[in-house]
């Protein structure tokens, strides 16, 4: 049989071909920043009027694209120039790799003739990003461009998602071609949807029937698989209590009776006790990070462990597991739901868990003279009815947001988990808001982290993005200070800010509304007022400098060795 002859296309240059391929990939917007090596791309953007969000620093382009990706599960797209543009984007690419967020990053490159000659603004970005991308490419022939782009989107958004980088030499962007562009990809060795070992599933279900103290641990993989419904149905049917990782928050409504809260270093008492005392642990889509399994050798010591993960390389990486089920969480959960295994006898276990919950609820010292950060998060939760996309930066405020916001949706928490990147929050909130313009977006950020990417306030102002920025100002790099207080005998080396910018003037400089909240008696009404207008607001809340995040497990201690607040 003869293949139908492909029609030649109108002649286009590489840059136009690139944008046409993005259009075919349903890309809604590009986050980027121009420069010499990407002039052809920006010229094509200009002529095609492609939607482009102009950030103020390339690191923010990558974080904003991550915000978009983490809030939707769809790849975020980044354009940056060669050399410094590309190196500036590296932090965001590394962050996306750690949290398996899909990105397609285009970096400009010097012309192919000049590569390797220390040309102006040349950087060997392929080598630099080899370990922080799922794959990367350099294009040497314009006719390869559509195939490479389609592959990049396919790789970024399937299997274990992640960032893919395409390095595009300037002369390739200028080359014209009328080659037709294929929309298929040919990567026979890449198997993003492994076939599930049904035998292992059957064995696991049998083990579940016989378990007395089962726990389901849910992670970011559940968001990636869009398997929230399956998790809830499974937990309900078998009455299995659920613990979430930081990145698994939102899979179970915080208020669900079966939900024990976040596990790990700053998790709830009940969640960590459940991890310590369970006899069967079913991990769906989390990778036993050391903030969760704080002491791998002492983790879930009485449990048979099952690990459901799409990435075979996660099996036995940190924790030795009995049932290893490589596959997509949704597919596996559906198989588990099809099983007719008997329900386990868990009444005593539930009783024990309820007792832990009742005796050790999440709590903090209330105050009549100071505004407590935990209370601020709770108030924001009430104001937004638990429906907001919650974006955080990194630090204590991030943990308070995780502990006290009443999450209920998939992809609702947008945070930097694995890399723990300060400066992530503000640009990520921009990406999240652009992805969900009709939904409320709240950013919790610290006085340290906001100073790392505060230039992006201009983007919020330019595009009139209604993002409520809750700046929890403790005048300290709080999370680091907490560790100094606990483990370095209160030697607060370089973590206390004696001088700070005037954040209200900063808001004003960008033309944004600013609110300063200092009075614990009126904080609820003040917050509501600050949230009222349908525009961005920088809401600076004065909180005590020495408030610790509790509970806490010291690194290396077991999950049942928690410190609690007085």
């Amino acid at each position: 049989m003869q293949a139908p002859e492909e029609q030649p296309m109108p002649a286009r240059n590489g840059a136009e071909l690139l944008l046409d391929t993005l259009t075919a990939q349903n890309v809604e917007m590009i986050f980027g920043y121009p420069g010499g090596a990407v002039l052809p791309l920006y010229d094509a953007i200009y002529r095609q009027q492609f939607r482009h969000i102009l950030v103020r620093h390339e690191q923010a382009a990558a974080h904003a694209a991550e915000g978009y990706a983490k809030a939707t599960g769809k790849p975020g797209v980044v354009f940056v120039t060669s050399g410094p543009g590309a190196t500036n984007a590296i932090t965001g690419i590394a962050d996306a790799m750690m949290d398996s967020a899909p990105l397609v990053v285009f970096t400009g490159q010097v012309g192919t003739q000049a590569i390797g000659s220390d040309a102006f603004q040349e950087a060997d970005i392929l080598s630099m990003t080899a370990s922080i991308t799922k794959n990367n490419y350099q294009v040497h022939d314009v006719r390869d461009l559509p195939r490479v782009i389609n592959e990049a989107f396919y790789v970024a958004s399937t299997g274990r998602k992640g960032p893919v980088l395409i390095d595009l030499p300037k002369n390739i962007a200028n080359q014209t071609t009328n080659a037709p562009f294929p929309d298929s990809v040919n990567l026979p060795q890449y198997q993003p949807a492994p076939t599930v070992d049904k035998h292992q599933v059957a064995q696991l279900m049998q083990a579940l029937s016989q378990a007395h103290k089962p726990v389901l641990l849910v992670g970011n993989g559940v968001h990636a698989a869009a398997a929230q419904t399956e998790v809830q149905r499974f937990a309900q049917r078998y009455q299995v209590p659920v613990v979430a990782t930081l990145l698994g928050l939102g899979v179970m409504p915080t208020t669900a009776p079966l939900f024990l809260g976040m596990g790990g270093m700053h998790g709830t008492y009940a969640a960590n006790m459940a991890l310590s005392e369970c006899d069967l642990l079913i991990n769906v889509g989390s990778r036993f990070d050391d903030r969760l399994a704080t002491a791998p050798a002492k983790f879930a010591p009485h449990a048979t462990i099952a690990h459901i993960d799409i990435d075979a390389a996660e099996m036995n990486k940190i924790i030795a597991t009995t049932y290893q089920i490589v596959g997509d969480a949704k597919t596996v959960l559906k198989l588990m739901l099809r099983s007719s295994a008997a329900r386990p006898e868990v009444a005593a276990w539930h009783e024990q868990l309820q007792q832990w919950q009742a005796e050790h609820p999440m709590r903090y010292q209330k105050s009549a003279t100071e505004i407590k950060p935990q209370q601020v998060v709770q108030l924001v939760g009430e104001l937004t009815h638990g429906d907001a996309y919650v974006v955080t930066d990194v630090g204590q405020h991030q943990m308070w947001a995780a502990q006290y916001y009443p999450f209920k949706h998939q992809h609702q928490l947008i945070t930097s988990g694995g890399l723990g990147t300060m400066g992530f929050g503000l640009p990520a909130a921009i990406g999240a808001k652009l992805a969900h313009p009709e939904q409320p977006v709240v950013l919790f950020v610290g006085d340290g982290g906001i100073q790392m990417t505060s230039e992006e306030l201009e983007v919020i102002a330019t595009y009139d993005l209604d993002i409520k920025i809750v700046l929890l100002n403790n005048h300290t790099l709080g999370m680091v200070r907490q560790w100094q207080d606990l483990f370095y005998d209160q030697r607060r080396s370089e973590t206390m800010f004696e001088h700070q910018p005037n954040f209200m003037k900063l808001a004003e400089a960008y033309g944004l509304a600013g609110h300063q909240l200092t009075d614990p008696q009126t904080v609820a009404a003040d917050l509501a007022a600050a949230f009222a207008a349908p525009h961005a607001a920088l809401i600076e809340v004065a909180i005590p400098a020495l408030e610790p995040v509790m509970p806490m497990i010291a690194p290396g201690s077991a999950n049942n060795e928690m410190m609690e607040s007085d």
Partner: protein
Amino acid sequence: MRRLLTCLLSNNPGVLNRFTGTLTRRQVNIDSISISPVGDKSASRVTAAVYLDDEAVAKQLVAQLNKQIDVLEIHDITEQPHIERELALIRVNAATNKRAELFAMVQPFRADVVDVALDSLMIQITGSREKVNALLRVVQPYGVTQVVRTGVAGFTRAEG
């Protein structure tokens, strides 16, 4: 323990970098690595000999390498019956009056003398790593001035 990995990599820029980068990141010591294009040159065959004591870690590492898009195939053939060969060129400072003795010594190894000069000669040997080591021990007393080894290439034996 020394383990032998055989892999097929697609022939794209930066592929080897990514491959060895993963080994470095996992703090795996590389004993040898050999690579050359095969077939229509769209792929390269790699044989990597690495030191890894823990079997579970080895398995996990292979899975980690296997998920790289440009790794088309990877197998840990350590436990399977397999053939390993390498080639070495050895330059020996042999005085003329010692040469007959030296020729006789290398004979049982089926090594060849591939270059002869006034004050040195070059021996070529192919075989297992052990065989190459053994020959090196034997010729050492004659004054070895240069050695180059390709690193092993390996395959599993055919079944049956």
